[in-house]
């Protein structure tokens, strides 16, 4: 019989697993763990179907699945260090997807990741490969430097929306336009998480942030930037996709897109960027599961999901 195994002391009590389980296998315990959080326990083990939804949505790699004597293991491309993210923040889910991709492609020992400035500034402590920590917004410039100097390496950046679409917008557009053979994981949580919830270039119209206390006024701040659609206008071939991680189905789609993005780099085909709609329960002021609903109801209609551009050969015509 399959069953979830909870690594209690990794848990931050976000309850996303309990929401995700279709069979009500899990329930919150009344005990707290070493971190001081309530954690889920397995209350109806016989009902577990081994669907892995709990594992998929867990942002803290705190759940593994035992099935037929085999237990899933966390990706080798993660160091195992507890993430510094708030409870329920989906940065952790995205980290796991990237790490699983690195593992499945067998590229960990020739990958260099670039951490941004933002909540994921410490990503260099979490990804178990060579890492560089860039200044705010410049991750793609740093990636360009690495890839041009060492084309044999696999280079990825991991960036938030303030980092990539505000202070780093010039670096973003030009790295894409030069067709740098790098992979960009763009985490759009519609807010500046690390600095305490200020408005981002991707903050939704009317969304309250600490620097737009009455909600984003599009007449003053403009409309939220749709990064992948913007980059799509460039003629240089690229792989551009937008995915989300607020439920198991979307997480599985996100994993496919991230894998494709890395593959395009591995094959030397093109620049690849996957925008991932992510949550910020702390600064949005919602519970983790409400945040996931907020993504579905507010972000997905404005930021449509799917592949926005796939590479095609553009014949170079001098003087055209």
């Amino acid at each position: 019989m399959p069953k979830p195994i909870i690594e209690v002391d990794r848990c931050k009590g976000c309850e996303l697993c309990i929401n995700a389980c279709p069979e009500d296998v899990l329930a919150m315990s009344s005990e707290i763990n070493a971190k001081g959080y309530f954690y889920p326990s397995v209350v109806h083990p016989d009902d577990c179907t081994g669907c892995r939804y709990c594992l998929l949505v867990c942002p803290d790699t705190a759940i593994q699945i035992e099935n037929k004597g085999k237990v899933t293991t966390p990706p080798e491309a993660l160091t195992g260090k507890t993430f510094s993210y708030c409870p329920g923040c989906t940065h952790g889910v995205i980290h796991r997807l990237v790490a699983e991709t690195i593992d499945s492609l067998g590229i960990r020992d020739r990958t260099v990741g670039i951490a941004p400035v933002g909540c994921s500034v410490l990503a260099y402590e979490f990804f178990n490969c060579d890492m560089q920590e860039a200044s705010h917004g410049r991750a793609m410039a740093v990636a360009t430097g690495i890839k041009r100097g060492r084309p044999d390496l696999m280079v990825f950046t991991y960036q938030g929306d303030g980092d990539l679409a505000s202070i780093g917008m010039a670096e973003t557009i030009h790295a894409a336009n030069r067709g740098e053979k790098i992979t960009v994981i763009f985490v759009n949580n519609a807010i500046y998480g690390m600095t305490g919830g200020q408005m981002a270039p991707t903050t939704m119209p009317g969304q309250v942030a600490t620097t737009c206390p009455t909600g984003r006024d599009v007449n003053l701040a403009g409309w939220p930037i749709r990064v992948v659609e913007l980059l799509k206008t460039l003629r240089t071939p690229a792989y551009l996709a937008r995915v989300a991680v607020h439920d198991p189905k979307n997480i599985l789609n996100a994993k496919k897109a991230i894998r494709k993005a890395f593959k395009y780099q591995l094959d030397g085909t093109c620049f690849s960027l996957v925008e991932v709609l992510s949550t910020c329960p702390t600064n949005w002021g919602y519970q983790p599961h409400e945040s996931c609903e907020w993504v579905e109801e507010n972000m997905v209609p404005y930021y449509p999901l799917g592949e926005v551009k796939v590479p095609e050969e553009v014949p170079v015509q001098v003087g055209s």
Partner: protein
Amino acid sequence: MAKKLMKGCEAIGEAAIHAGCRLFFGYPITPQNEIPEYMSARLPQVGGMFVQAESEVAASNMLYGASGAGCRVFTSSSSPGISLMMEGVSYMAGAELPVVIVNIMRGGPGLGGILPSQSDYFQATKGGGHGDYRVLVLAPSTVQEAADLVIDAFDLADKYRNPVMVVGDGLIGQMMEPVEFKKTIKPEELAEKPWATTGCAGRERNVINSLYLDPEQLEKHNWDLYAKYQSMAAEVRHEDYNTEGGCDVLIVAYGTVARIAKTAIDQAREKGLKIGLFRPITLYPYPAEALAKAALGAKAVLVAELSTGQMVEDVRAIVAGRRPVAFHGRVGGMVMGPDDLVAEAEKLVAVPA
């Protein structure tokens, strides 16, 4: 190797190639465009890579990435562009990454002008970007010396794992002089950099980083960097010219101004006035001991710069009141003549010290 007549900027670019550098990231700005232009043509011929960045901010961060991945890497710019590069320079200093940056200085502040200037002395020698750091600063005064120092700059950068800046101005950049390259290093001959992010096959993973959230660790990091900067004192270089047996007036000048001072020395000799020249070649670390010695052998010191007075502050601190220190500066792209320096020197000896 036979000497070749080359423009300063081109000699600088060729010197980088002789140093085993195969990567250039930069953004055009006058008066140094000949360097990126030269590199864009030359690097592909030697299996290298030239990238025109979208800005100097981006260029400086490309340097960070490439240097972090263990590559010898190079850029050049001029004053306003160097200001934009200060982000990357501060991060490279913090992460201890070697890089060579050439600043062909032009007049400022702001957009200023495009003519020769030495007004970025403070920026170059006192850090320039945020945080408590220093870069090694070399100041050539001939095209040959520019080529020599660029080659040395790469070795020094690797030795100290620190940015090295070579400062010149439009005169040195545009002037043609005979040059030969003192050595040719093949990239594959360069020593491995075990700290670089080259993929973690067969070893622990490497991290390039300047973030230290723990104040005790950041303090330690700062003192470790400080100790490294102190150890760079071993690299001081200078030239003494016409100072044997002491002199009436010691001119302290670097780069282009030192060339003018040498002509002034000849003119003064005809007038029976003995002027000596102390020319710092390293501006950081500053050849302080040698300057103190030379200054004590003179009746007075005259600092000449293409600025309203920057290096003079260091000279005054070193001379420490033991000799009068006067200053003569031209700015905005205006350059003093040798006769101006002779006249200033004459004034100094006319006044009882």
